[in-house]
């Protein structure tokens, strides 16, 4: 009898100890927020363009965490969808054309002679990449521009162009070799000619 009581007491004691440890850990190592949202946000291109229908990249990351489709980000394009699919272990979908097409990286350019200095584009820029003041000419800091398009619409004189980022020797990329045509060895000389 006493053995049973001892066993019960020991088990009870253990349960209390582990309960206390777990309780402490739950408080001590509490995770604030949803870490998956941060991970998704890291994969998004951070153009803050709103083409996905959310007011910025983080809200879309939250949306994805809550089960929204992962193919709504045109600036990220194929590679972002692939990365998101890998992260979330879901199937990579083709880009949803409803939200736009994947375009080469763009950069806003203000035709400065036409700028009237209304500051509307400055207010629209999500990353503060436009420099200027009221009634002063504005200009885009190219290095900071994410090419999100948001400044184009508010401009009352339509003096903002979205131009593709020029290729320079600095950002030029080597091409992958063309896929080899299936030549057999005896055709090699003909293929070379």
């Amino acid at each position: 009898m006493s053995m049973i009581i001892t066993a019960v007491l020991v088990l009870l004691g253990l349960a209390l100890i582990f309960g206390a440890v777990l309780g402490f850990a739950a408080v001590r190592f509490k995770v604030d927020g949803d870490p998956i949202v941060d991970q998704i946000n890291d994969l998004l291109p951070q153009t803050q363009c709103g083409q996905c229908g959310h007011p910025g990249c983080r809200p879309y990351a939250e949306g994805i965490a809550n089960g929204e489709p992962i193919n709504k980000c045109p600036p990220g394009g194929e590679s972002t969808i692939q990365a998101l699919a890998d992260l979330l272990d879901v199937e990579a979908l083709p880009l949803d054309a409803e939200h736009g097409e994947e375009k080469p990286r763009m950069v806003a350019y203000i035709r400065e002679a036409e700028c009237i200095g209304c500051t509307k584009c400055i207010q629209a820029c999500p990353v503060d990449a436009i420099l200027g003041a009221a009634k002063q000419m504005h200009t885009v800091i190219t290095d900071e521009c994410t090419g999100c398009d948001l400044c184009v619409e508010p401009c009352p004189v339509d003096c903002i162009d979205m131009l593709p980022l020029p290729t320079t020797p600095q950002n030029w990329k080597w091409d992958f070799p063309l896929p080899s045509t299936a030549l057999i060895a005896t055709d090699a000389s003909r293929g070379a000619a």
Partner: protein
Amino acid sequence: MTAATPIRIWDIPGGIHPAENKTQSLGHGIEIAPLPALLTVPLQQHLGGRAEPCVSVGDTVLKGQIIAEASSMVSCPVHAPTSGTVTAIGPAPYPHASGLEEWAIHIEADGDDRWCELQPVTDFRALEPVTLLELIRQAGISGLGGAGFPTAVKLKARPEQKIHTLIINGTECEPYITADDSAMRYRAPEIIAGIEILMHVLQPEQVLIGIEDNKPEAAQAMRAAVGERAMQVVVFPTKYPSGGEKQLIQILTGKEVPSGGLPADLGMVCQNVGTLLAIHDAVVLGQPLIKRITTLTGEALSHPTNVEALIGTPIRELLDFAGLQPDKLFRLVMGGPMMGFTLQSLDAPLVKTTNCLLAGTRDELPPPPPAQPCIRCGLCAEACPASLLPQQLHFFALGKDYDQLKRQHLFDCIECGACSYVCPSSIPLVQYYRAAKSDIRALDLQQHKADHSRQRFEHRQERLQREAEQKERDRLARAEKAARIKAAKEAEAAKQAESGAGTPTSDAPAPKAGGLSPEQKQLKIAAATAQMALKKAQKQLVANPDNAELQAQIPQLEQAARQAQEAFDQAQGESSNQPAAPAPQAGGDDETKKLKIEAAMLRAALKKAERSAGDSPSEEQQAEIAKLREQVEAADARIPASTTTKKPVDEKLKQAKLDLAMARAALKKTERALSENPEDADLQAQLANQQQACQSAETALHEAENNSPIPPPQRQLVDKKPVDEQLRALKTSMATCKADFKRAERELKDAEQAGGDTVAAQQHLDTARAALDVAAKAFADYMASKETN
């Protein structure tokens, strides 16, 4: 290896032995390339930041003068290679695998080749290492071996790393290239002087000069130049690619540079012999880096040789100097056949990293055979000097599996091309690695940029939120303040009401507290309505003075309004039992009322007289008006002060207005008289006097207006001259015609621009013009007739 050198030679893994092809270009020593007419000096010739031009188009520059400043830490200044004039600054052909243009300064040589003032250092040992480094930096020296990293940055000692071994790279393992070989053969003393400068800067314990055994003359010359100095010339077996920095270090010391690390992590620095020559020139001669030794070779050249050429010399001119046969040229390669890249244009200039120009014929540099599938033979892995697995890298690159590529140390690949060289399937392996590397770099850059953008976005959001919160706080503060003030006012009002109610003289609530009995209110409303109806009728009459019905209506309305007002006044008078202190509205006695009525009637008569007189009153009319005005004034004066003016009137202002009106009337009179009798000198003098008087009256009025205590809305500053009906009609018709004409003009213009039918528009324009002419004529006639009247 000599007996005197106890240095042990190590081996590197892999490596190949391609045909050397070095003898062709070694027959003529170092020749001096002719001075070109036009030089193109690119602003970026190496890794790092692009230099900022500090000259402008049209400037005259001297040889060695700085023409572009270093833009950042990892950047080199650029110097004028010869004296001449800057003709352009802008994108120009550039020797790059992409064939893209790069910003460059164009200099038209004047042929004098005149140096700017040089500051040679006679005794570099007297200088601090830091000063020497700055000299090297200012001379624009970047590595002349191939990669072109700014030398000063490479030499800059990091405090935690003591450089104990200085390695001089005279290996030149690539086939065809003999630039370093020639430099060592013919410029050995200068190279040794350069080494001594570096030794002074770095204070190494050991200096090793590595030379492959296929260059015995160079090794001999270097040994002779070294003499008794504390340097060792190490000759080791020829093998490609032992000239790579990491490979050379491994051969000479047996140590491997860690993956992703630098030789400095091992306490070593490696410099190319060409760079040392440049350091010698910069310090001992004071000349910046404006020339270099380049190998011109290949079977398409009839005179392959080594030249010392100015940076910026067009490649075409150099090749012509070496006897280029254009029909034979199949591929022009900058660098060697293993690591070089094909140049797409002969117009690109020589840059600091151009160690060789290989003009190959078709037989010499045949197009690569088509790639076959990998057969997993493993020859590439055997050949790889960095002990990588080229096969694996190839497959991961094909699948664009960048994580795996990084895990397989893709970035330790030195792109030497040994794997491609041995591949039996002729797979262009290096091209895969280069493409994968640039993709990964671009992705990293993109990721970096995304992080940066996110940070900026978040900071912006924070800022906006801060601003919004501040606004909200300010708004609350304002609301609170307003509420306080209102509460204080209410409290005061309540206090007053209390004290007012305390006086026994008044039963009804005082009018100040806003208390009117319902009856009074009704009367007040009735009075206001009647007044409004009267005003409306008067306005209509002004617009339409000949309407008899209206004229009849007005007195009736006046009567009604007066009655209503009287009723209201009476009611109020009854309500306040205190005749001693009547409120302004509470003028209850009949006499005052009568006077008021009289005054109002007189005023109405005056107005009527004024209206009928129009803008050209006859003298009788004027007299009548003046009389009426006097009567009105008299009547007003008779009404007791407390009751005459419901609205406050500024006496001074009134006086000023009166004065002005009188002065104007007198002026007009004189003018008329003068028009009838233009020769009268007296009249003319009078006119001048009156004009003066009129003007001073006007200024007085303005002053009075400004000083008037009455708020502006209660004053009527403008005295509009009545416009007669006909004039108005004429003016309106003219304006309509004008608008029509303008519209027609616009239509015509649009039609012209659109290229459409202009005939109809032209017709419309003509009719509109005719109508406008008619209207303008009618107006002019009318004005003329009025003048004569």
